């Protein structure tokens, strides 16, 4: 197995055009354990690095795909800006920290995996803030889609389909992202001692209030504390935060055990929720991500209680992170499906990911579309062949 690290977009295009067998598409490889295992020489984007445009007054940044994500977050933080969608760092969860010493997650990998953290409920996913892409399709052609302005409906938008395509449709070479100002202040309103269903009800009330909750999570009993914690994050200017904490106290006055976290205490908590720290250990366990309508989160977990394991909720209940000793794929997927949800296998040994579909199996017509759309980008099956669906 060979590894290519082209220094230019044109070189990358040549490698793909001349390839006669599938290539594994990677950034730094911190998420190479996500998705189905696939084979072939490795084509890395890390040689394509550097910020190509940053206009703070327009809240937009462009960078070559191999640029370390941390370089981008540092650069924009210096100007008081941030990525709206709060992408997670999976290197702890996936145990790739030690294996790839010296290599750091890239902005291309972030886009390809559509990484979106707690602020998803307010500001959307990565795909909602990524304004433009340059990518190389399976024929080795350099394609651009979208642009650098936030309102753009010119032509068929190929940005979103490439976000979350895990490199199966294109080798990303440049990413343009819309930014947001870092709020003056962030605090977390905590209610302790609630059961899952009760907690998700509280979060629904908060999210249905006018107070612009930017994080809504529930950590059940045993995750870090011997009491459950229901968490609501407020991010805004000082006067607004003061007012809204008062309003939340009125709204939830019936609950006795309330406190407010500020500063690093609040920041650390949301980082842990974002990066799935609370259930990352034991490392041998399987990790599932279940997406559902928020009120269905506790219903799905009630059905899965017999499996044991540990879990917590983000996105107001609409995202359940679940750690189990064994995959129990059929049981997990059936419970999710019963409530219109989707279960994705985030961490499992390679042998398991080769046997069990990693992404939720789709209907017959959607599978047919997946096949035809893949062929429209990559007719020869060169790019991350089989990474998402076996044989596609």
């Amino acid at each position: 197995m060979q590894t290519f690290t082209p220094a230019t977009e044109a070189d990358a295009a040549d490698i793909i055009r001349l390839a006669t067998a599938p290539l594994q598409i990677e950034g730094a490889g911190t998420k190479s354990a996500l998705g189905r295992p696939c084979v072939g020489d490795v084509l890395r984007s890390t040689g394509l690095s550097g910020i190509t445009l940053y206009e703070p007054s327009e809240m937009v940044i462009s960078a070559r795909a191999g640029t370390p994500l941390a370089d981008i977050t540092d650069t924009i933080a210096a100007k008081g800006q941030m990525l709206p969608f709060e992408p997670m760092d999976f290197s702890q969860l996936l145990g790739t920290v030690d294996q790839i010493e010296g290599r750091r997650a890239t902005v291309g990998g972030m886009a390809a995996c559509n990484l979106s953290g707690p602020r998803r409920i307010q500001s959307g996913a990565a795909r909602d803030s990524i304004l433009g892409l340059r990518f190389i399709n399976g024929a080795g052609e350099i394609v651009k889609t979208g642009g650098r302005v936030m309102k753009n409906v010119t032509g068929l938008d190929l940005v979103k389909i490439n976000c979350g395509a895990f490199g199966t449709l294109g080798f990303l070479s440049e990413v343009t992202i819309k930014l947001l100002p870092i709020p003056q202040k962030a605090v977390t309103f905590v209610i302790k001692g609630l059961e899952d269903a009760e907690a998700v009800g509280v979060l629904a009330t908060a999210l249905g209030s006018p107070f612009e909750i930017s994080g809504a999570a529930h950590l059940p009993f045993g995750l870090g504390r011997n009491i459950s914690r229901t968490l609501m994050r407020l991010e805004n200017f000082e006067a607004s935060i003061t007012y809204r904490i008062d309003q939340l106290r009125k709204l939830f006055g019936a609950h006795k055990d309330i406190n407010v976290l500020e500063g690093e205490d609040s920041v650390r908590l949301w980082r842990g929720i974002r990066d799935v720290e609370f259930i990352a250990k034991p490392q041998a366990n399987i990790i599932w991500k279940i997406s559902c309508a928020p009120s269905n989160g506790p219903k799905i977990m009630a059905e899965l209680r017999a499996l044991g394991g540990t879990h917590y909720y983000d996105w107001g209940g609409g995202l359940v992170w679940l750690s189990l000793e064994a995959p129990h794929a059929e049981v997990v997927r059936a419970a999710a499906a019963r409530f219109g949800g989707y279960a994705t296998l985030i961490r499992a040994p390679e042998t398991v990911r080769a046997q069990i579909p990693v992404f939720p199996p789709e209907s017959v017509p959607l599978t047919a579309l997946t096949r035809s759309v893949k062929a429209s980008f990559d007719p020869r099956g060169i790019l991350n062949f089989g990474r998402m669906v076996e044989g596609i």
Partner: protein
Amino acid sequence: MNAILFPIPDANILDKRDQIIAGLAQIVPFENLITTLDERRAFETDALTAYRRMPLAVVLPRNTQEVSDILTFCHAHGVKVVARGAGTSLAGGAIPLEDSVVVGVAKMNGVLDVNFADRTMKVQAGITNLAISGHIADNGFFYAPDPSSQLACTIGGNIAMNSGGAHCLKYGVTVNNIFGVKMVLMDGTIVDIGGDTMDAGGLDFLGLVVGSEGQLGIVTEATVRILRSAEGARPVLFGFEGVEAAAACVAAIIGEGIIPVAMEFMDKIAIEICEAFAHAGYPMDCDALLIIEVEGSEIEMDAQLARIVAIAKQHGVKVVRASQSAMEAAAIWKGRKSAFGATGRVADYICMDGTVPTSQLSYVLKRTHEIVRGYGLRVANVFHAGDGNMHPLIMYNVNDSAEQAKAESAGNDILKLCVDVGGCLTGEHGVGIEKRDLMRHQFSNIDLAQQRRVVGAFDPLGLLNPGKVFPLDM
């Protein structure tokens, strides 16, 4: 002598019109099939009224199954299909072809489910944008994207064009507010895409379908995100002596990290036209007007406005006028939202829709006036300044074909300028037929061919809304 060409109709299909109508009559009741010349005339154009084509027939199905049956029939007979919501497209996205059947979704306009706990609502494609918000307003909720045509336009059309509106600076455009759709492919296959969840897994077909201008399928149902309304909203008028000062103020506000819920711009001609129509109290002695809306509680609005006013003063603002009542606030927005209609009372116009980086606003405004003046015409500018989405309204006389050609040339020059400064041809109206022939100015042939192949993955025969978006030689 209209400039934009249409594909040449297929004579075989035109000859088979009676057969096609007979087939459609097997699928929908008599009253849902429109065949007479007089009745079809209502469907021969959309809001790009300078162009019109009479379709073979218009079908108004009542449910998803009927849509599927119609498409199955048309697919089997090689008949082109143009989907239609309310026909408010400014880009000609819903203009029929002479050898096509129009499938209108207007009869499917119901609310299927409202879920306040999960903040979603399931609707049929023919419901109007405003009716969605209207249905939940008493509960304090709303659907965010608010195109100016929201009284008439349908969610189906909004999805096809990825519509925006004045308030998407904060809340995003259609694609950011849709969780799932039920869609019928050209061969009649019914697919469910997404659902009521924030993530679905698998490829993001939803992100592909929204904004696909009716070329991937016909959406019959949608699950939309609904939001709790802010405690209050206050639009404030900021009048400036010079256009440049107003544009610089917009950039400074965003640069300061403030994102108001809306920032709308009007130049002098637009102010005069809108004030004459809406009597909103716009200051008449200014060259440029910003309508900036903040929302939240009284304390929050006061705090945010204080910061905005301070920035505006640094940019020499001449007049600052906050709405004192709900009625005044409504009048301020009525003036802005009726800008197109009010202009239409003064002259015929074409409305451009390019987006530019906000740092380029004042340069592009200056050039816009120079370009239009160069053709001997007048232009009013009223647009979404916060996101750089410009709407020059180029006024002309529709009965003077030479003047129409000049207006279209001026519009094309402006759009090319938008692309050249780093923007795009269309921010929220779509390409349709109007911007189709300019696509090569923004995209390479490779870019366009890739888009075309993806359309082909959904509709291999190219029967859905052909002749739109892509240059005709593709």
